[in-house]
């Protein structure tokens, strides 16, 4: 567990970057620091591995003040991932990943062997091993950055906007892999982002900072969406937080109606579109499976030309429909 105990950071010549922050980053969970630009997220993160020292207050790891620990040794036990990855341009992907194990005294050969396994873990094919960072896309670099931070198997990972330099599609993929990895590894993660959606998606716990380095609210994503502490938090989590809270449930228990004749399907039963007139077939706008979120179902119902979301099975065959009023009834019943 990482503990911030009444931490203050005042930069010389600058204002107060972090203002009397006390919080806990629980072991084995992902805690996301989120807030507008300049609110002290990076500063807070860097006080954990002593890249920055607090003006007053203490940061403790498992009860031990980091200020009393050897900087370099402390940092070798904490993975660190930053935006744009910060890879070493003069080292191959494999040697980048092997960095910390080598610092810890492993031979280069041992470290490289372990690094190869890690590349696979973060979804990079072995043929990337001998490339240089300049030969990778932004998303691939970010994966190498994650592999490098994981290489010495540190119990703690610090991640500063690790996914913000890539396009939305790549980010989506990285998110999925992050969640999969974290499920396996159970690291204690402190992550910074300015994207509340990312915080809600990835965080077990979310810390919302406001301007001036003040903590506005700490809670689970669901708590923040359903019960914002004040106007600032409500505004920050967004006006569509009702819709967003649907992201936490799947459509597994959502009732569906049988597929009607108006839904045009191909020979394999895959939906092609809705018949809205004699010669008029309009696209469905997408489909969901029972593993998708209720948010997607709501989105589909809104987009659909007839206000109906189409469910498909694993083979893509249409196996049920949910009109938007059925969804509304289901949500109302669930609340009641």
């Amino acid at each position: 567990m990482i503990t911030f105990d009444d931490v203050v950071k005042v930069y010389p010549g600058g204002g107060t970057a972090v203002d009397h922050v006390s919080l806990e980053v629980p072991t084995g969970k992902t805690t996301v620091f989120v807030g507008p630009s300049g609110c002290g997220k990076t500063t807070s993160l860097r006080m954990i591995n002593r890249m920055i020292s607090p003006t007053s207050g203490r940061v403790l790891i498992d009860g031990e003040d980091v200020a009393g620990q050897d900087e370099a040794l402390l940092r070798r036990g904490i993975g660190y991932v930053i935006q744009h990855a910060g890879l070493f341009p003069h080292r191959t992907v494999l040697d980048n990943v092997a960095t910390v194990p080598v610092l810890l005294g492993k031979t280069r050969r041992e470290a490289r062997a372990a690094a190869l396994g890690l590349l696979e873990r973060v979804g990079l094919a072995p043929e990337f091993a001998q490339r240089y960072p300049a030969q990778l896309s932004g998303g691939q670099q970010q994966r190498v950055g994650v592999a490098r931070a994981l290489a010495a198997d540190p119990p703690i990972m610090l991640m500063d906007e690790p996914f913000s330099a890539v396009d939305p599609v790549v980010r989506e993929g990285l998110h999925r892999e992050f969640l999969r990895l974290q499920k396996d590894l159970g690291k204690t993660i402190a992550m910074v982002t300015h994207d509340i959606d990312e915080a809600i998606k990835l965080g077990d716990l979310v810390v919302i900072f406001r301007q001036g380095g003040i903590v506005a609210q700490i809670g689970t994503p669901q708590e923040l969406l359903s019960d914002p502490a004040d106007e600032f938090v409500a505004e920050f989590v967004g006006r569509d937080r009702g819709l967003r809270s649907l992201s936490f449930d799947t459509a597994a228990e959502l009732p569906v109606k049988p597929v009607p004749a108006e839904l045009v399907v191909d020979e394999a039963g895959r939906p092609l579109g809705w018949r809205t007139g004699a010669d008029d077939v309009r696209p469905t706008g997408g489909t969901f499976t029972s593993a998708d979120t209720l948010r997607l179902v709501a989105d589909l119902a809104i987009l659909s030309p007839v206000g109906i979301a189409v469910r498909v099975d694993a083979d893509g065959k249409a196996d049920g429909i949910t009109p938007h009023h059925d969804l509304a009834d289901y949500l109302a019943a669930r609340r009641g």
Partner: protein
Amino acid sequence: MITYLSNNSETVLAALRQHIWLALLPVLLGFAIALPIGYLGVRFPRFYHPLVNVAGVLYSIPSLALFVFLPVVLGTKILSPINIVVALTIYTVALLARTVADGLRSVDRLITESATAMGYRRFRRLIDVELPVALPVILAGLRVATVANISLVSVGALIGVGGLGQLFTRGFQLFYLEPILVGVILSVLLAGVADLAIVLIQRAVTPWTRFQGGRA
């Protein structure tokens, strides 16, 4: 020219050999001295501007003046090759200290910070990360210093030492074109070969730079 070469091969070869070590020894010495000085200019930013200014002044001293002036300071004989070596070492330091400082300063802060965050201590970070990343800039400076030294050695002939430059002076004294031609061609060739050698070394030790086209 062929006949000149075959009749004077001993003299020409000796001049070439002397030219090579008079030019290259200062490069090595100068590089060794410039590394720590350049590093100090980065480690303590206050030293950077004084360093650049002093280096600029040293570099602008005319070489002939330095060749003549040094024996007075060093107490060496005016014909001693040490004068040339010391003078060229001074130029090399002046050029490379700044290059080393600029090379180290050009290393992206993102890279040094992530090295620090991974648990590098200062010295190892310098050796393992900052110097290798700065190497393309430093080697470019080394090329300039080497080629400059090779041409400056010839100036030393005016005070009686100077490798291939001696061939020019002899040619002028005897109103004889051949030695001048041979001297010029050989020193140009030597500069070209040295330049090429450094380029090849650079390719070998900084293979990653080939892929950086289009990226900062």
